[in-house]
C-alpha cells in the first residue's frame, strides 16, 4: 500500500510510453465498457418494464382501507362514542390533548358532522367539573343536535354526578347501570381559609385592591358576610341554570326538578324511578338504543374518533407525568372555582 505514496512522481512516465497503450486500445477496456453499457441499458429497460407492470397491477388492486386495519370503523351507518372521563375542566394547558371540555366539544362537533355517524353515545364517567367547561360541552351537544338532528344518548358508568348529569341532560336518552352514582344536581364553591396556618408559619399577605370584592375567595382571611351573600347569589344563579337545563332536557317541570335537585346523589335505579334516567343497562344497551333512535337497528357499528398524533403525545405525556411534576402542580393549584361537581367521589 505504501507504494501509492510515490504516484505523483510517475506522471512523466506514461507521457513517454503513450504510443504503446494507444496501439492496444481497440481490444482493451473500451470493448468491455461498451458491453457493460449495453447490458446496463438492457437491464434498465427490463427494470422499467417490470416497474411499469407492477405499477399497473398495483393500481388495479382494490385499495386497502387503513382505517379498517387500525380498527377504526368506516362503516356507512355507525354510532360514534365520545368518552367523557374524570373531572371536566377547560384545562390550563395549550396542549391540544389537554384542553378538556374544548377538546370534547370539538370531537362532538366533528363526529356529528360525519355522514356515516347516525347517532352519538356519550360514555360518561365523571363527577362533574367547572361550570364553564360543563356548559361548553352541553352547548356543543345542543348545537350539534340542532344542526344535524342526530340522536344523542348518554351512558353512565360508575359515576355521573353533577356536571356529568348536566351534560347528559342535553341528550335524548340516558342509560345508566342500576348501581351508577348520579344526581348531585347543584353548585359548589369551596374556599379554604389558611389564615390560622399562615399566622403559625409567619406568612402575612396584603392585597391592594381596586374594589372591596376584588380579593373575594381569598385564602388568607375570613370571608365577610357581604362576600358570602354575593357568592350565594352567584351559586343560586348557576343552580337555576342547572335546573333549567335538566328541566328542558328531561321535559320535567322546574318545581319537580328542584325537589330532586337538593344536591343529593342517587343510584341509577333511584334516578330511573325519579325520571332522571330513562333506561337501566350497560354500554351495549346504550349503543342499541342509539341505533334504534337513528333507525339503523340494534348492535350498530361503533366509530371512535381519535387523532393519532394527539394520542401519541397524550400517551407520552401520561408516561412522563409519572415523574410527578404535573400532579404536583395540580395539587398546588388550589384556587377556588364555581363547580358543578360532586366531591364524594
Amino acid at each position: 500500500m505504501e507504494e501509492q505514496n510515490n504516484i505523483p512522481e510517475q506522471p512523466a512516465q506514461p507521457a513517454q510510453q503513450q504510443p504503446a497503450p494507444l496501439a492496444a486500445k481497440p481490444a482493451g477496456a473500451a470493448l468491455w465498457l461498451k458491453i457493460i453499457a449495453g447490458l446496463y441499458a438492457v437491464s434498465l429497460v427490463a427494470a422499467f418494464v417490470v416497474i411499469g407492470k407492477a405499477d399497473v397491477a398495483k393500481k388495479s388492486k382494490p385499495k386497502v382501507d387503513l382505517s379498517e386495519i387500525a380498527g377504526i370503523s368506516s362503516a356507512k351507518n355507525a354510532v360514534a362514542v365520545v368518552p367523557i372521563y374524570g373531572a371536566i375542566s377547560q384545562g390550563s394547558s395549550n396542549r391540544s390533548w389537554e384542553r378538556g371540555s374544548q377538546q370534547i366539544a370539538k370531537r362532538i362537533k366533528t363526529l356529528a358532522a360525519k355522514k356515516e355517524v347516525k347517532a352519538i353515545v356519550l360514555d360518561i364517567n365523571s363527577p362533574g367539573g367547572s361550570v364553564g367547561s360543563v356548559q361548553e360541552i352541553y352547548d356543543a351537544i345542543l348545537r350539534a343536535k340542532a344542526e344535524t338532528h342526530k340522536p344523542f344518548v348518554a351512558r353512565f358508568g360508575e359515576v355521573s354526578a353533577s356536571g356529568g348529569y348536566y351534560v347528559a341532560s342535553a341528550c335524548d336518552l340516558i342509560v345508566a347501570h342500576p348501581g351508577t352514582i348520579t344526581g348531585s344536581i347543584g353548585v359548589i364553591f369551596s374556599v379554604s381559609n389558611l389564615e390560622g396556618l399562615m399566622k403559625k408559619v409567619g406568612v402575612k399577605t396584603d392585597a391592594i385592591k381596586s374594589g372591596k370584592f376584588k380579593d373575594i375567595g381569598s385564602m388568607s382571611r375570613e370571608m365577610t358576610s357581604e362576600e358570602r351573600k354575593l357568592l350565594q347569589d352567584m351559586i343560586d344563579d348557576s343552580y337555576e341554570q342547572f335546573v333549567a337545563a335538566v328541566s328542558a332536557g328531561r321535559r320535567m317541570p322546574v318545581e319537580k326538578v328542584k325537589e330532586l335537585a337538593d344536591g343529593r346523589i342517587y343510584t341509577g335505579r333511584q334516578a330511573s324511578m325519579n325520571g332522571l334516567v330513562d333506561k337501566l343497562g350497560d354500554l351495549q344497551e346504550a349503543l342499541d338504543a342509539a341505533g334504534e333512535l337513528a333507525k339503523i337497528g340494534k348492535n350498530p357499528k361503533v366509530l371512535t374518533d381519535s387523532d393519532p398524533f394527539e394520542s401519541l403525545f397524550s400517551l407520552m405525556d401520561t408516561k412522563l407525568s409519572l415523574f410527578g411534576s404535573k400532579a404536583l402542580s395540580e395539587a398546588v393549584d388550589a384556587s377556588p372555582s364555581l363547580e358543578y361537581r360532586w366531591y364524594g367521589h
Partner: protein
Amino acid sequence: MNPFSTLENLIERPESLAGAERPEGLGRTGLLGYAAGTLGLFAFMRLSEAVPPGFLSFCVVLGFVLAANFFFAGVIHLFMSLTGEKGDAGRLFLAFGCADMFGALLVPLAFLARVGVLNGFLWLCACALLVLYARVRLVLRLYPVSANKAVLAVWLPYMAVGALFFAAMVYSIAWLVWLVI
C-alpha cells in the same frame, strides 16, 4: 472525446488523473457517471417501492446524490488540504462521479433480490462498499497519501454526517421531552 474513451483512458492509465492537466472529457464522464449511478439506484429503489414514480422523483434523487457528493468531495479535499496534501477538489468530485458508475450494478442486483438471492439491503450495502473502495483508489490516485489516510478521508464525511444525525436525534428527543413536560 466520448465518455467511453475517457473511461478507457482512466482505467488503462489511472495516473493521468493526477497529471498536470485534467484528463479530457472527465467533466462529462463524471456527470454521466452520477446520472448512470443514480439511475441504477433509482431503478433499485423503484423495484423495492422505496421511492415514488416519475421523472421528478428521479431528479430529486439525482439532486440529492450530486449535492451529497459535492459536499463529500469538498470535505475530503478540505481534510487533505488541512493535512498538507495537494490536489484538485473539482477532479475529485468528477472522479467520484466515475466511481458512481458502479451504481449501475444495482439494476441486475435488484432483480436478484426480487428472486430471493440475498436481501436487497445486503446488495445495496455490497454495492456501496464497492463504490467506496473505488473512491479510496481514486483518492490514492489524486493525492499523494497512504492507503490508511485515503480510507480515513473517504469515511470522514460519512462519519461526520452520521455523528450529526445522531446528535440531531438526541437533541430532538431531549427537545420533545422538554416540550411535553
